[in-house]
């Protein structure tokens, strides 16, 4: 059941629109996270939902009733809000703070009734703050303060709880502690949770639904799998990232790779790389960082170098997973080599399956192409073909292949290439 509906909501300060065309619905019992880069309007969206910012355009309904038709106290009995960075300078005890949460239910001069005690103590028990209830909020750790603030929000006995970056300024153990607590409340109390989260991996791990904001608009909303794709992240954050399944948490994990802002560097020579099995990862990321026009091949689909190259959108010649390179694929690869200035061979183990890559390099050097072998580890044996690979390597060296011992040497070589 949809309990919150936002219909074409816009909000801004003067002419500057902070939120535009926001359409969003939240189901009862959902754990929804709002993600997006700084300044995308995440906190603003949260505050508009809570009617803290009132002069928005469009329509927000909560439990079927227009948010603007609620009285403040009435709304506070349904939604509670945990703000970011609450600066509390006055020496209330945790217990006193949590009891404040009963405000929307109490009349003036009404003392705390048994009912208020029960709910406040239950809120403290759920958040593990009962044993520290007499401590002053000025004298507790960041994690404890966050739990106390969540306890205060729970004392409001809400159906929906909004949190603005509940994990910012917390150590990783406290981040997990707070989110585990929220997830537990979400599952056991059927509490609907809407949280702004900075950390994409925490968002993917705990949320049922994600909303990705950019420049005040919803770029994508839906399940974690729908929203957390490399292209959505690239679009929102202007950054390349790899999204893969984390085996430990069984949730999608985002690894930022590099900022997209760099343009191709035309002063460096273009390169075709022969790699595989992870041997090319360092070279690929370094060369891309320098802005080299790069292609890779042939790589089997699913190979770790293939995954990296794919996510970074490197031009590539592919072969089916776990199968030997076919002849026509390797000719395709040769054609790609012909368009580049230099062919670089990483220290890739050569077996019968990828021997054709090496043979094509030999063809290329015979055609006058410059070939460089980056031999990072002198000890390492790469020949799994009973000497055929070694024979080709020796022939390549005979034909003038340059052997370099590190990626740094390769980069130095490329720097000086233009002057030759």
């Amino acid at each position, binding site marked *: 059941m949809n309990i919150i509906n936002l219909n074409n909501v816009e909000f801004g300060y003067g002419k500057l629109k902070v939120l535009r065309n926001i359409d969003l619905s939240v189901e009862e019992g959902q754990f929804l996270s709002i993600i997006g880069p700084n300044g995308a309007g995440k906190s603003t969206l949260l505050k508009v939902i809570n009617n803290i910012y009132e002069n928005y355009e469009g329509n927000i309904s909560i439990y079927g009733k227009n948010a603007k038709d609620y009285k403040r106290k009435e709304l506070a009995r349904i939604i*509670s809000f945990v703000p970011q960075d609450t600066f509390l300078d006055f020496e209330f005890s945790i217990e006193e703070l949590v009891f404040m949460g009963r405000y929307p239910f109490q009349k003036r001069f009404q003392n705390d009734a048994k009912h208020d005690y029960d709910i406040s103590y239950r809120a403290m028990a759920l958040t593990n703050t009962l044993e520290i209830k*007499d401590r002053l909020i000025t004298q507790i750790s960041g994690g404890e303060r966050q739990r106390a603030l969540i306890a205060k929000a729970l004392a409001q006995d809400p159906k929906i709880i909004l949190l603005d970056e509940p994990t910012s300024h917390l150590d990783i153990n406290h981040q997990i502690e707070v989110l585990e607590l929220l997830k537990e409340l979400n599952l056991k109390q059927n509490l609907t949770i809407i949280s702004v989260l900075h950390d994409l991996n925490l968002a993917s791990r705990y949320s049922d639904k994600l909303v990705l904001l950019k420049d005040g608009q919803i770029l994508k909303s839906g399940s974690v799998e729908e929203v957390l794709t490399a292209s959505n992240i690239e679009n929102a954050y202007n950054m390349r990232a790899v999204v893969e399944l984390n085996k430990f948490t069984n949730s999608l994990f985002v690894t930022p790779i590099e900022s997209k802002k760099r343009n191709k560097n035309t002063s460096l020579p273009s390169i075709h790389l022969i790699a595989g099995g992870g041997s090319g990862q360092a070279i690929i990321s370094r060369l891309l960082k320098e802005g080299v026009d790069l292609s890779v091949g042939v790589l089997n689909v699913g190979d770790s170098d293939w995954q990296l190259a794919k996510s970074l959108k490197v031009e590539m010649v592919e072969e089916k997973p776990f199968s030997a390179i076919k002849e026509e694929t390797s000719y395709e690869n040769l054609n790609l080599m012909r368009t580049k200035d230099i062919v670089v061979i990483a220290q890739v183990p050569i077996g019968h399956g990828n021997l054709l890559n090496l043979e094509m390099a030999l063809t290329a050097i015979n055609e006058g192409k410059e070939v460089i072998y980056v031999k990072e580890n002198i000890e390492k044996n790469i020949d799994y073909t009973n000497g055929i690979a070694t024979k080709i390597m020796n022939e390549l060296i005979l034909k003038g292949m340059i052997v370099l011992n590190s990626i740094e040497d390769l980069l130095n070589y490329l720097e000086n290439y233009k002057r030759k």
Partner: protein
Amino acid sequence: MKHNYKKKSKLNILISLSVLLIIIVAIVSAIGSANIKALDVYRVIFSKIPIINKYVNMEKITDAQFAIIWNVRLPRVILGILVGASLSVAGVSFQGLLKNPMADPYILGVSSGAALGATVAIISQFEYVKYGFSSITFAAFIGAITAVFIVYNIGKINNKLSTNTLLLAGVAVGQFFTAIMSFLMVVNSNDMSKIIYWTMGSLSGKGWNPVKTLSIPILLTIVVLIYYSKELNILLTGDETAKSMGVNVERTKEIILVLGTLLTSLVVSVSGIIGFVGLIIPHITRIIFGPDHRILLPCSAIVGAIFMIITDTISRTLISPVEIPVGIITAMFGGPFFIYLLRSKKKMM
């Protein structure tokens, strides 16, 4: 320090403080050149109450003693209670509302406005008495309200009160009014000492009149401010949090500001600018009783009243028969005591 005062202990604290106030009222009323016993003070008070007065033995009290207690000492002590309570309550409210420990009742320009008003009345030699109040009192009240009105309108941006703008406007308008007052003082140097004495504050020689007129509005205002103590507590957690908890933040702020300045203006126009009480008593009470306004506001009213009448007694007896302006005494005795409390609190933590 632990502040978990439950309902019962809250009530106990209030009762103990009230008893203490009643005892001190008798003691300070008895102190002075005339030979008066503390118990005589109660006899005089009870003799004025219908029904009870039949049971009071008045034989040992001479007419002169009666006159001193009833006409001189008691009105002055009760005015002291009103002034001390008002300044403390206004100070607590402003410190809480503006979340600024430097805030005092005068921070929004009340004192400078009142001083300028009083100065104008003094140098214009305009004598006018209505309802027992002098033209100086009226002019001071008008000056105070005018200053706050200006500050308030500067601090209101887009219909919202901005705390920082309010504080800065208070400082700027206050300085401006003080400058005009100083200029008027220099031009009319004959009245200088009278103006300076007024600005240092005094409770002497006011009689019953200000007590009769001011006690009801002052008590009502204090009660309404206590009525808002839950909101004051919640406002300490931030405006947005308060709003999300159902507090009508803007209206609450306006009401508290208006009531606080009204309280201060009423008191200042009668007694002059008595400094320090409204800054220090809120801090002292907060250190002792904690930040919960439900207990802090009533306690600070009583503690402020006690502090005021003790310091006023010192001001009239220290180099008797010369009266020292009470503002000097409040700072001279309150300052060191406050520093002592601050330091002992730090050691505890």
